[in-house]
């Protein structure tokens, strides 16, 4: 029943990143939080903002702007954290995505969504489920599982290397 329904249309939670509209499949999102106090984690890539307390659970937050190379924009009243469920190796991990602002939930019919273009995008086509058209605007529908992929969930190696001299030696040892 649900499957059938999904084939014709689906709901997406849309949000802004550096002035552009993006969206997550609403079934992958759990809730939207206001920007709160986030504790930074040392030795992580720049797009890992830190961890926050979600009713007693510790959730990692990533900055999608930084991750997609869309520049650094300051925190405003609209800044929000979208809590999403990432499916990775049959295990559901809860991750927070820091975005500039949430627009709302929208319904897209199947014919309103086009496959991602092979070129002309800053993002790799892998990360995109499709492009939705809405009042002449494009909405980039992100693939939650791929956006928060392995590389993000176990970023430590990258971290060690990106943090330079201190860990270079031990990191290369682990690789070897």
């Amino acid at each position, binding site marked *: 029943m649900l499957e059938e329904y999904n084939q014709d249309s689906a709901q997406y939670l849309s949000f802004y990143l550096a002035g552009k509209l993006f969206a997550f499949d609403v079934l992958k999102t759990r809730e939207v939080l206001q920007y709160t*106090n*986030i*504790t*930074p*984690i*040392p*030795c*992580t890539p720049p797009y*890992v903002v*830190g*961890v*926050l*307390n979600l009713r*007693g*659970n*510790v*959730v*990692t937050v990533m900055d999608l702007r930084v991750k997609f190379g869309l520049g650094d924009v300051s925190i405003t009243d609209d800044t929000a954290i979208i809590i999403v469920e990432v499916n*990775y190796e049959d*295990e559901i*991990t*809860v991750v927070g995505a820091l975005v500039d602002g949430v627009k709302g939930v929208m319904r897209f019919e199947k014919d309103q969504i086009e496959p991602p273009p092979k070129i002309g995008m800053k993002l790799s086509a892998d990360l995109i489920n499709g492009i939705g058209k809405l009042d002449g605007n494009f909405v980039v529908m992100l693939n939650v599982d791929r956006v928060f992929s392995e590389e993000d*969930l*176990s*970023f*430590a*190696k990258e*971290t060690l290397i990106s*943090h330079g*001299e*201190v*860990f*270079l*030696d*031990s990191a290369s*040892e682990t690789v070897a």
Partner: protein
Amino acid sequence: MDIEALREVFREEAYELLTQAESSLLELVENPSDSEPINTVFRAMHTIKGSGGMCGYTKLSDFTHEVENLFDCMRKGKIAPDEGIIQLSLRAKDCIRNLIEGDDSLEQEDLRNKILLEIKSITGGMVCSDQSAHSCEIPKDSINLEAINSESYKIVFMPVPSILSHGVKIEPLLMEVSSLGEATVKCDISSIPDFDSLDPEECYFNWVIHLETSRDLMEIKDIFMFTEDYAEVVIRYKEGFLLNNTFFKSEEKGTVIEKKIPSVLNLLEEKTKKADKIIFDRRKADTTSIRVKNEKLDSLVNLVGELVTLQARFSQEANFARIPEFISLAENLEKLTEDLRDTTMSIRMVPISETFNSFNRLIYDLSNSLGKKIKLVTYGGETELDKNVIEALRDPLLHIIRNSCDHGIESPDIRLSKGKDETGIIELVAEHSGSNVVIKISDDGAGLDREKILARAIERGLLQPGEYDDRVIYSMIFEPGFSTAEIVTDISGRGVGMDVVKKNIEKLRGTISVESRENRGTMITLTIPLTLAIIDGFMVELAGSPYIFNLSHVRECLDFSDDVERDEKSQFMINLRGEIVPCIDLRGIFGCNDKEVAYPQIVISEIADEKYGFLVDKVIGKYQTVVKPLGRVSRNLNMIAGATILGDGTVALILDAQSIIKEMSGSANDYMSDYIRH
């Protein structure tokens, strides 16, 4: 209750009984003339047979029946227990365990048949009568004897009310007693409650039996053997004062029983009210422990953790609001929460003795297969640890003990030639030390071969040639793939093991160290935190964020005077009362680029007997820390052990001091070797 649920209960009970039986068998090795272990095994087998049959395990109950039969013969003195029988029984016990676990392969079947044949060859097909079924038939010639040599007994049988629900049938019991001789059975109905509170499924009767028989006391006791958990049985000679309290109290406790005599006698005479009380006591004892699923316990602990966090926040808000009623409420809540936390934690605490005892079998098997004589001695088995910790400790301990048996303890002739006792001793000691438990595993064997380890370490490039401290050399055994054993046995020597042991111990936030003396033995010391869920933390601040150390590592705090040179690796040394202490600037390694604070402080911590300093911005103090996993993210984040949620709702990261040091010393070593190479 459906059959699966019933089987689950049976399996748990059976595992317990098997463990009991195993330790009794091993006791028997030590003390073959003791009858108590035989009785225990017999009872265990009988129960497994009965309950197993009830749950539909026919193969199990048939097999167990034969084993029970063997022990019945031993119990009756028809067969003397010897080494062979004990080994056979141990194998049989393993088979039973496998059967319960559902392993019914052909291999197992073969094994069982072999064991059955052996048992039959020992018992010679002799069948000792099945208690309840056959012993009603009294041999005719004994009747004559009775008249000549009969004795009067008074037996008081006081079952707990719930006895019927345990599947004990009382009527056959009484019949059996009566069949021993001339008996009058009186039923005491004085403890039947009012009709309102009467539960038709409970048994409120007590029985007093006057028995004239020529049989000896043992036989009477045997009848009540399987009711021991559900009834108080008092047997005494009518003439004279010998009174034998419930036979399941062992002989050693004889003095205690004697002391009880007057009171029990009183009870017998005015049994109306007081028998009630006994039943009540028994009933109380009956319900003192319940089985709870592990998951339930875990979620309880989680919830309590939440509550602790919430309460901390509440107290903070209350103090901030400055409303007296509010503050006193917060204080009461705090006290309550603390009690709740301690109680919850204590639920998960179990004594380590069970784990310790399970190694008896290992030692027994190993000493047989290695041809060595080894004895396991344990102290402090009553020391309690978190259930999860104990489970995680099993494998490391197993490895260490195997190593001790294989490499540590020498074979008997070598031991004799060294002037040692032929039997090697492995000692397992557990004791509390602050919020940690220290477990020491020591043997009186050959000790570690310092020169060989050094040579091997140099060969493998782990150390540069030179002079080293004993500790450095011995710690090499924890390196992956490190083994000096010339012969790889199936027990140990492959060089996997000790590094896995170390990893497992570190996963528990514990430490491991080794000491050794040539020909005197080796001692491995494990230091394990009592619980994984809540630790005593020590909070510091770094670039505006709170971080938490494990308080058990922290020794002292110092103000930092900035007159030492720091190299580019954020490491430096300080002079602590004449001792050189390496220090690590956490700011540097965490890449905090903002302005340094004017007065940084150093936290001196002690890890595996070595002191290290950590430079932080500010020391905040002790903090009760509920450990939360960082989830997937932390899997590769070495230096962070987890996170915790502070009173104000922010998240603080828990530092893994040990890993930080390891990372740093790793990079320092590489640096050094680079230096040497160039």
